[in-house]
């Protein structure tokens, strides 16, 4: 609770709203005790006194009544009526909602149909009809406003109750022989109450405004009694000659509604867990760059990642997702990057084209060079021109990575037209050709499918076709087959392999599966906790893994026809990258670890093409 309040008041606007509202409520509660003039005593000689005249701080109205006194009494009335309407609406609406949700079936059906009918009205029409039937008057306006808001509560509370009614504790109560009434009152109501209170706090402002509105129309409080709405309504005829009589009650309504809104926003933000972590910020077009240290010199590789550091800054914490990774590919080469989830392999891949979500991502060091040109910190236009044209991505899970509302043909054509000025018809013809290339049968028809109309394997092929659209030099494939079943996976891998040989494109293939690496990759780099722990030619690494982690990872792959044996899972979990231990990050899970492993930085060493980051490697390389 105190954490909740803290969060609420950290939001300065919400705190301001709370203070303003508290002042107004205190003033209103104290009104009968304050030395005010009678709000209803008329003095026509003193009419329309301007504010700050003697004896009338806020001036007087068209009948010479003291505005300050009328304002406070009016506010008192408006607040009381609004809160009363909220209480009535919440009580009746919640009762209807609980009954409908608890009993379900026919009762629920009939009640909710009725609620739907009521919600088919613009709210004021219903309120006007009720006032028309009952006649103008504050009490009738209150009834109208409450009645109009009943459906809102009924629907909300029914939704919550339906969820609760199926839960075990309700069944248990029923089995214990409790009657319906008792279950409703002692089991359901206490659980629904918080929702009712939140719904009330968000609607009470509305109800104050709605009753004020009806009074403004002359359908609510009748003279001489005045609430804020009728004060404004009476002042309207003198708006042009004596604006202060309108401004005073108007500003009061504004203050009340605004403070309730601010407070309500604060409550909502404090209750929404997504906002708590600050995750609801949108990623920028490119990853933020704040490089410290020297920038490595260019090499003659096609694409070179050099001593890359990428971090996530979340509040005070810094997660070192990538801590100095160097990788390179030449044309026609396939490099595998392997590691468990959270080892930093995807972040490394996304850093290349500045696609790490930012905030919270920041690239803090190193370089990414495409044909020698540094991409880190390159201006957006330069980066965009290369995205998809020189370096293309294939992502995991194509259901979420393809846009759900565009046809696949449109998405393919767009990839082409983002880099080449070609007419739509030409782009479309090319898109059909691409779908043929990735062996989608009946491409002419499938091109007008939406992603949700395709199977998982088909969607992944579309993802590959999209990466190939501009015949890039490098493709970065981030677990492109993880979401697929084995036969489809095999097809897609052979497809990628063919394309590489036919077009001489370089592939960086990210996976957690050594089987896939063995099938496709010339070289492999093993990542752990944001760093490379071993790399070398695939055959050599598979035949004689040097790092204990690599060895354990290979042992995890079950061998087909290898008979029944224990699956060699690696005990423990990868470390959190905001709190890396000194020395080898794998040491806590390694059975070979010595004291020396837990101190100081361990370099990547060995004779090229192999290297390992280990003091006591399984094999000397």
């Amino acid at each position: 609770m105190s954490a909740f309040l803290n969060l609420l008041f950290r939001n300065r606007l919400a705190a301001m709203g709370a203070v303003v509202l508290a002042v107004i409520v205190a003033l209103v509660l104290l009104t009968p005790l304050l030395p005010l003039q009678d709000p209803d005593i008329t003095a026509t000689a003193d009419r329309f006194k301007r504010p700050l005249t003697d004896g009338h701080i806020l001036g007087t109205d068209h009948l010479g009544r003291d505005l300050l006194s009328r304002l406070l009494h009016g506010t008192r009335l408006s607040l009381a009526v609004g809160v009363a309407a909220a209480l009535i609406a919440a009580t009746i609406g919640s009762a209807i909602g609980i009954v409908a949700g608890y009993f379900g079936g026919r009762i629920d059906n009939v009640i909710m149909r009725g609620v739907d009918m009521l919600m088919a009205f613009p709210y004021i029409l219903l309120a006007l009809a009720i006032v028309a039937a009952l006649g103008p008057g504050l009490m009738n306006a209150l009834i109208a406003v409450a009645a109009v808001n009943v459906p809102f509560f009924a629907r909300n509370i029914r939704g919550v109750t339906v969820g609760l009614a199926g839960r075990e504790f309700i069944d248990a109560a029923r089995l214990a022989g409790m009657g319906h009434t008792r279950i409703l009152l002692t089991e359901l109501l206490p659980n629904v109450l918080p929702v009712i209170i939140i719904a009330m706090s968000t609607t009470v402002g509305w109800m104050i405004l709605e009753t004020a509105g009806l009074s403004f129309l002359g359908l609510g409080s009748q003279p001489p009694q005045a609430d804020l709405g009728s004060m404004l309504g009476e002042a309207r005829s003198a708006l042009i000659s004596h604006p202060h009589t309108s401004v005073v009650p108007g500003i009061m309504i504004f203050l009340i509604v605004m403070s309730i809104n601010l407070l309500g926003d604060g409550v909502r933000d404090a209750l929404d867990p997504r906002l708590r972590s600050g995750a609801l910020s949108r990623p920028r077009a490119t990853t933020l760059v704040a490089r410290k240290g020297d920038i490595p010199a260019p090499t003659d590789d096609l694409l070179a990642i050099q001593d890359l550091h990428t971090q996530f800054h979340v509040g005070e914490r810094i997660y070192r997702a990538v801590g100095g990774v160097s990788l390179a590919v030449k044309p026609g080469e396939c490099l595998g990057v392997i590691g468990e989830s959270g080892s930093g392999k995807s972040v490394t891949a996304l850093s290349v084209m500045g696609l790490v979500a930012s905030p919270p991502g920041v690239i803090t060091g190193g370089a990414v060079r495409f044909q020698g040109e540094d991409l880190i910190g390159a201006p957006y236009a330069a980066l965009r021109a290369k995205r998809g044209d020189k370096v293309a991505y294939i992502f995991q899970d194509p259901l979420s990575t393809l846009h759900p509302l565009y046809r696949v043909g449109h998405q393919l054509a767009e990839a082409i037209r983002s880099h080449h000025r070609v007419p739509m018809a030409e782009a479309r013809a090319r898109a059909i050709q691409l779908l043929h290339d990735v062996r989608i049968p009946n491409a002419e028809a499938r091109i007008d499918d939406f992603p949700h109309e395709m199977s998982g394997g088909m969607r992944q092929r579309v993802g590959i076709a999209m990466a190939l659209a501009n015949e890039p030099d490098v493709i970065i494939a981030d677990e492109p087959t993880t979401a697929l079943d084995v036969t489809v996976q095999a097809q897609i891998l052979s497809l990628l392999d063919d394309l590489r040989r036919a077009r001489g494109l370089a592939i960086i293939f990210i996976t957690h599966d050594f089987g896939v690496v063995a099938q496709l990759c010339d070289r492999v780099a093993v990542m752990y906790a944001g760093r490379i722990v071993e790399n070398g030619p695939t055959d050599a690494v598979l035949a004689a893994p040097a790092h204990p982690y690599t060895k354990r990872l290979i042992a995890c792959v079950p061998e087909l026809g290898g008979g029944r044996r224990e699956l060699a899972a690696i005990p423990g979990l990868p470390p959190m990258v905001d709190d890396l231990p000194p020395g080898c990050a794998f040491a806590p899970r390694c059975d070979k670890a010595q004291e020396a492993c837990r101190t100081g930085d361990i370099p990547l060493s060995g004779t090229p093409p192999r290297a390992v980051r280990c003091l006591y490697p399984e094999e000397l390389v």
Partner: protein
Amino acid sequence: MGGYILKRLVSAIPVLFGITIIVFLIMSLIPGDPATAILGSYATPENVEKLNRDLGLDKPMVQRYFIWLGNMLQGDFGRSFSLNRPVLDEVLERFNATLILAGTAFVLCSVLGILAGVVSAARQYGLADKLITFVVLIGISVPSFFLGMMMILAFAVNLRWLPVSGMYAIYGGGDLPDLLRHLVMPALALAAVATGVVARLSRSAMLEVLRQDYIRTARAKGVPERRVILGHALRAAMVSIIPVLGIQAGFVLSGAVYIEIVFQWPGVGRMLVDAILKRDLLLVQGGVVFVAACYVMFNIAVDVAQSLLDPRIKT
């Protein structure tokens, strides 16, 4: 598509019946004798009895409902006693004026609200975002009738840019420019709150969408950022914005009642308030049923728009 529209139209029939039943039930809440309520307490017993017979009030309730419904289906909404003309004629004439006002305000709140929301999301935590958030907060907190009055003070009385009230100038008005000059202030005052609500929702919908994987895909294939925001992201965000536009249409229609009073706009809302104060119940009844029915139809149009936008909705 045609089949879907037809299906939605058919499903509206029970709702329309429901509306007539609810209005009828509310009107039968009238305490005491309706004829006395209409004629006032000084009416002679003969007059009361005659009116009761004219209104069919001496018959049982269910029968009365079906007579009323049958007449309405034939286009007979009864006769307004205070205006001494058919209810439907009056409602249609007034609804036309309301449609001009509320329709303009609805277009304004949709366009301005979505625009503000998109800018706000694309420049999150930037100056534009803070400015928009502040204006929106004020916008959703000012009662529309107070805002309207303040606009009259500022732009009609002090600056003399725009006319104080009415739909046309009394002398020499009646053409389109005259209508537009009269429309500016009431439409803006009416749109203010809804614009704020739409802007807020659009902002959060855009922020939600911009974090999705398919936005990263669009960026990865080199789509220019402007197209990413205004194409990919906005299109996906519209899926959650459109239903809110439907709800806001209801609020705009409701708010029109206040604005019509403040600006002396000859619309259906002002007609209803006058009718209530004069106890012209047939006029209230007919007006409410007519406007609610139009609103139901509008919501069907919103659903159809939604299904056109989102192919995942089964049509």
